[in-house]
């Protein structure tokens, strides 16, 4: 257990224990996720952020149990998921649901909303008879804010807006009473004007039903809003480089990469965004996953990198001594007991 956080009290609901995932690609083998450990408590809202290729989606797919790790363990309620067989695994599959980025692709265009939502209800015998199934679907539509529900039952996906489709996708995840929802860029394709309402819907499910939610996003502002009472994990080239309470992470990042991201974000506020301090990276070039640098994979770009240390030793994700509880995978930050902002100043 590497997590030192007050959010996870007692036994975590689900845990990634040093999981890795490699893929064969033309030109070799890439490690999309490398030894990531993460414990998620019941009812927790957690965000994983990072740029494309950082492994956040692969991590989410492993959390949801649809991708088998090539190393490490996925632990659900204390048990190793992939060591189980048959019925046990199907109970896990119901407990963890994935909501995709693109509701245009994830809903079957030839099925009505009722058909889409009732199929898992019938399959998992969550209803007694047809009337009960209709009532359950009506109730779910109400929960996700598609009201009056009768207006939506007979509609097809193409008759709905992007935001409404994403609500249907969330309702479908809820049909099987999940304990954890993994939402992969679930709000990035909808208009800014309705993004917040979808995030509020997910947060409401957490508050009212106690569902844990892991939101995967490239947008740190969205992560800050969503995980304001929880944690944000920052990934870079397959590794978790920082895991901290949301406000600590955005106001006082500990890893130089987190600091660089936060400094680079254009903000919807002209005075703030035009006067931001920049973190100058040594190069804009992101190493290929096929030829990752040794040691800390961020060292070729890192302004704090030290020769003979950062280019040799892989930093582990360790608690940063002093200050608010957070974990960081950076030799320099750990040694100096300082967050990146102070080190870079």
């Amino acid at each position: 257990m590497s997590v030192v956080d007050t959010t996870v009290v007692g036994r975590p609901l689900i845990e990634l224990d040093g999981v890795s995932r490699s893929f064969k690609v033309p030109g070799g083998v890439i490690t999309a996720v490398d030894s990531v450990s993460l414990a998620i408590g019941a009812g927790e809202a957690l965000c994983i952020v990072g740029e494309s290729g950082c492994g956040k989606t692969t991590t989410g797919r492993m959390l949801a149990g649809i991708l088998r790790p090539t190393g490490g363990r996925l632990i659900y309620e204390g048990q190793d998921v992939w060591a189980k067989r048959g019925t046990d695994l199907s109970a896990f599959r119901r407990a963890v649901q994935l909501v995709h980025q693109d509701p245009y692709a994830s809903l079957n265009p030839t099925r009505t909303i009722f058909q889409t939502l009732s199929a898992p209800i019938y399959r998992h015998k969550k209803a007694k008879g047809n009337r009960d199934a209709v009532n359950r679907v009506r109730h779910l539509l109400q929960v996700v804010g598609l009201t009056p529900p009768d207006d939506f039952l007979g509609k097809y996906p193409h008759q709905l807006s992007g935001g409404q489709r994403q609500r249907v996708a969330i309702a479908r995840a809820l049909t099987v009473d999940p304990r954890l929802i993994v939402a992969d860029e679930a709000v990035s394709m909808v208009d800014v004007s309705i993004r917040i309402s979808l995030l509020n819907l997910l947060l409401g499910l957490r508050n009212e039903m106690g569902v844990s939610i892991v939101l995967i996003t490239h947008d740190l502002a969205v992560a800050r809003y969503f995980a304001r009472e929880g944690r944000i994990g920052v990934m870079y080239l397959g590794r978790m480089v920082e895991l901290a309470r949301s406000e600590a992470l955005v106001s006082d990042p500990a890893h130089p990469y987190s600091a660089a991201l936060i400094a680079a974000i254009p903000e919807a506020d002209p005075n703030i965004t035009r006067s931001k301090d920049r973190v100058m990276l040594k190069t804009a070039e992101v190493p290929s996953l096929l030829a990752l640098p040794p040691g800390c994979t961020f060292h070729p770009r890192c302004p704090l990198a030290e020769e003979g240390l950062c280019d040799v030793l892989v930093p582990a994700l360790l608690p940063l001594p002093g200050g608010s509880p957070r974990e960081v995978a950076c030799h320099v930050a750990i040694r100096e007991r300082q967050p990146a902002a102070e080190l870079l100043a």
Partner: protein
Amino acid sequence: MTPILSVRDLSIDYRTRRGPVHAVRDVSFDIAKGETVAIIGESGSGKTTLAVSLIRLSPRSAKIVKGRILYTNDRETVDIRTLPDDELRQYRWSECAMVFQAALNSFNPVINIWEQFADTARAHGLKDSKKIHARAQELLDLVHLDPKRVLTAYPHELSGGMKQRVLIALSLMLEPQLIILDEPTTALDILTQRSIIDLLGTLRKRLGFSMIFISHDLSIAAELADRMITMYAGTVVERASVTDLFYRPRHPYSVGLLRAVPRVSGAMGAVASIPGSPPDLIRLPPGCTYAPRCPLAIPACSEREPDLLPVDMPDHDARCILWKTVAEQVGNAEVAVAEKIATA
């Protein structure tokens, strides 16, 4: 000084089986030389229809119902709407260039970057390959790309950020005075977004061109715009300087958009989404088209569509009869709107 671009009472319909879609309605605005204007609004607000009409790249189903698009250079003023085809070809690229989203298919996938440059140059009468090559090298240097590596590459071999840089370089080839950018940073990673924004800022300073941004992303507007235009249901609902629009908005829809975007720095404030969805552009609601979603709406709002009229700040217009109420709510301090509403 005469503005470089002056759009007057522009209205564009799309023909559909259900009837005409009023995608752009009575839009007027000016762009001064060297000025950067950001057009913001949700999808379906008409901003992209408006942008492509400025270089007459609209799809065939689109029809300009009325209005003028006046472009002025050192020599003359022309109406883009009535420009003969041969002059239009000249206007595109050499006077006004458009940069599309790199994530979309803006390149011919089967020819390399050098040929993309050569094609564009030859289409505009440049014959000398050596000269074109020198110009391509110069432009790629300008956008911080290595010409040796990039010119021989095919589009699929470049990252999203590199493709966006190449598109920007291409757009600059014939030294246009006006560049229209449609979602130039959408679908790019944060550090790449930052580098594209910084690049556009430097190029603008160095080359002095005017820019029009079309974006649903308010942060790029906050970074680069001098002035802002908010569009809703095909029409301009607010026109203001960038600081006025962000800190002193006078239209409830601008307020709604500003409150919908969470920030990373500063206080979070009262972030909120806009309830409802944009209206059906075939059957527009009576009166103010935003009234059905507006938290301030009163019965008078639905009687007739308000005019775009000056408010209490100079060079600032809003299409709202309740702009004074909005002004009371958000005040004049240079603090984000979401923060002000939280503390109000």
